């Protein structure tokens, strides 16, 4: 009896992949754990697919190291060795050579600085980091995009103006692969506040930014883009309520679209807008079925030019104060088969007999054409578990049973609240989460779960 236990302990601490296991439906699941890494839970973490078969992870550990770890070999690079200041909010993009990783982060040393660096994953060479900005007092809410030698960086800063602190969105660009960057450009000038940066970088390296702008006359959703000719004038998409957390932009073919969560006089609702003329004019839509739904998660993806998917987790605030369902997040799924011009009503993708009384939130989503997969955090087993469901007909119909991606009720495994960490690589799906070592939920390590859909 001792040997199996010792063997299991060995396997656990070395994070060796467990043989494919089926937890209740016809999907085989594998997982790879990294118990040697103690995650800094405050910070985002990512799966980075490089080349055709290789995956890397990017995260911060509890020693304030920015770690890049290859999944298969477990090779480890530390980005900020010897760098002063506490790092936060690492973000990444893939360089022109798909072994070139570009990372930006905010460090807080003598002041607040925005740093950038390039890592060659073939040689493990790490350059000396470049200071992109130390004038706007950057805060750790950063977006990064790369195409060929163009690098776009957008962030939220709190530089003072003559009226005191001003919260604004700034951007900087590089046209030499990140060796040099332009001076910070204020994307949302003359405002009271803008605090949520977003960024799309298209195949030409053009940058598209959507953000809420609060000014003396109210609040607007504003779009601004830059091409090789520079920044164009901002375009107002229209008046909005108080935007909270979620602004998700997409570019589907030539169509630009943005989804956002806002509230009017305390009544929450999700909205979207799209433009077919490069952002000059916008068509708005309100997801009326989301009125009173207070969002805890939002992700939007395109399967192709026609199939666009939106998944939300939300608490229904229209429930009475004493209704326990008022505290439980539910999943809401919407699909479009006309490239985002119109959307379905809410589709129920979760199947739990006590579903409205147990939490489900932080959905992650990936799609290819009409095949769409959603993984979420589910609390039907008290502990936080990962569950999955999928559709192969553009989100219209789903499997009639949810598929657990780990042994139900055994661990506390949690998805990140913002980063969409579900990817598909050559028919295999990977989702990155963190798993707590004990029920005290003080310390957690990365866990990468993979699965293939049934034929």
């Amino acid at each position, binding site marked *: 009896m001792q040997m199996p236990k010792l063997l299991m302990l060995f396997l656990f601490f070395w994070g060796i992949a467990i043989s494919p296991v089926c937890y209740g439906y016809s999907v085989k699941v594998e997982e790879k754990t990294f118990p040697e890494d103690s995650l800094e839970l405050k910070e985002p973490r990512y799966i980075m697919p490089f080349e055709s078969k290789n995956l890397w992870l990017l995260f911060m550990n509890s020693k304030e190291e920015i770690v890049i770890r290859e999944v298969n070999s477990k090779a480890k690079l530390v980005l900020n060795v010897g760098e002063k200041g506490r790092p936060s909010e690492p973000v990444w993009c893939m360089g022109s050579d798909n072994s070139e990783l570009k990372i930006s982060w905010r460090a807080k040393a003598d002041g607040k600085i925005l740093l950038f660096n390039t890592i060659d994953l073939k040689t493990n060479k790490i350059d000396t980091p470049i200071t992109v900005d130390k004038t706007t007092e950057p805060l750790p809410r950063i977006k990064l995009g790369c195409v060929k030698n163009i690098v776009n960086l957008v962030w939220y800063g709190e530089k003072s103006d003559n009226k005191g602190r001003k919260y604004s969105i700034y951007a900087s660009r590089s046209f030499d692969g990140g060796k040099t960057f332009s001076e910070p450009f204020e994307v949302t000038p003359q405002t009271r506040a803008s605090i949520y940066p977003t960024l799309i970088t298209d195949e030409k390296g053009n940058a598209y930014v959507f953000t809420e702008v609060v000014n003396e006359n109210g609040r607007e959703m504003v779009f601004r883009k830059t091409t090789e000719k520079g920044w164009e004038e901002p375009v107002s998409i229209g008046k909005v309520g108080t935007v*909270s957390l979620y602004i998700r932009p997409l570019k589907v073919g030539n169509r630009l679209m943005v989804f956002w969560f806002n509230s009017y006089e305390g009544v*929450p609702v999700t909205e979207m807008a799209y433009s077919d003329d490069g952002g000059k004019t916008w068509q708005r839509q309100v997801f009326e079925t989301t009125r009173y739904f207070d969002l805890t998660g939002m992700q939007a993806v395109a399967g192709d030019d026609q199939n666009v998917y939106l998944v939300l987790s939300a608490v229904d605030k229209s429930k009475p104060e004493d209704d326990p369902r008022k505290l439980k997040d539910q999943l809401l799924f919407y699909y479009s088969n006309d490239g985002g011009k119109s959307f379905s009503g809410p589709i129920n993708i979760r199947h739990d007999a006590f579903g409205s009384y147990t939490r489900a939130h932080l959905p992650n989503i990936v799609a290819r054409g009409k095949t769409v997969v959603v993984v979420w955090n589910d609390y039907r087993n008290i502990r936080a578990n990962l569950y999955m469901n999928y559709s192969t007909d553009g989100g219209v119909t789903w499997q009639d049973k949810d598929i657990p991606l780990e042994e139900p009720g055994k661990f506390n495994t949690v998805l990140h609240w913002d980063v969409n960490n579900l990817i598909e690589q050559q028919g295999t799906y990977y989702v990155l989460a963190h798993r707590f070592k004990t029920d005290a939920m003080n310390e957690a390590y990365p866990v990468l779960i993979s699965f293939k859909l049934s034929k």
Partner: protein
Amino acid sequence: MKKWMVLMLAVGFVLTASFSAQADSVLLPWIVKNRTVSTIVTLVNAADPGGNERVRFHLIYWYKASTQNLPNERCEEVDFCVPTSFNDILVFDAAGNINHGAPLFGDTSVNGTKYTTVQGDALSLPADAPRRAFLIATNEIYTTQNCGTAPVLGNENTIYAEAMVVDIATGAAWGYDGYNPNNPRIANTPESGINFSDNATAGNLDALGQIVASNNGEYAFLTIMPPSVLTTRMFVTPVAANMTQVGAGQVGVAAQLYCDIGRNLGGMYDYDERCISFDTVKQVICTDGSDVSTYVSSGAWTIFANTRAEGWAYLFLPNRNVTTSTNIQVPTTRQAAIGKLEFTVSGASIDGTSIGGAFNNFIWLRGRI
């Protein structure tokens, strides 16, 4: 109908008159009554009636209309008088768990007069548990008038009160001193002695900033410990010139968290100075004790809780609509007494250091400009 209810009705006729009494008054904004939670109230009378007059405590409880204690639920009222005297001190459990609510420590009479209330000798809140309430205590100087109708010439700062909220099972406790505003009686406004608003008369009424008066531009700082370590509960009692309107749910208060009040940026800051915006408005009628998560949007709270770190916000009382639990829209006072309780029910671990047993930490949030 329960006995206390009959008695309450019997004294109800003095309700309106009770707020015209001239005397010094103190507000205990947060009374907690539960089967295992007591609120031990201490009252001190320093008014010397002199001559043939006597002095008594007039106790006015406003308590939630049901045991649901909904944030926007109105209150019911019960009031009664008990004897006191110059330099007298009186201690009782407003929850009635200890000595069935009668005066504690063998203090059964004053100058030979036994305590007699709406419920025998008990001074506790005569309503089923659990209840939240606020209590106004007044020292009336009287000759033969009925309770609440004495034309008394009370002096400022002649009544003092404290409240100790104690969990009988665990021993965890918190407390505060009552709010006695600096509003000496003005000849033409005799009701000023029972007016707790922050702008009833000129002068610095709440010398310690006990009232957050956002109609005067005041706000409070609110820090929030990591939800993974401590639960934070907000205790809010609206304040107005006429506290009967507050208790009866004719006015309420809207409370909101802000990153930047001047820029109208609702939200809170996380541990790394990031503003997480939201537009959640907490509506309170009469009094309330709700977790701070109900002041934050669901998404913002999910993010904040997942950081497992601390955060903070400005707390402001904006001019927003307030709706009662019976769906009636009422005006907002924009003033309130606000407290913050940080607690655990079974110990905590803070950065690896274990703290045994339940504990409480209570901060009365101060209004500032």
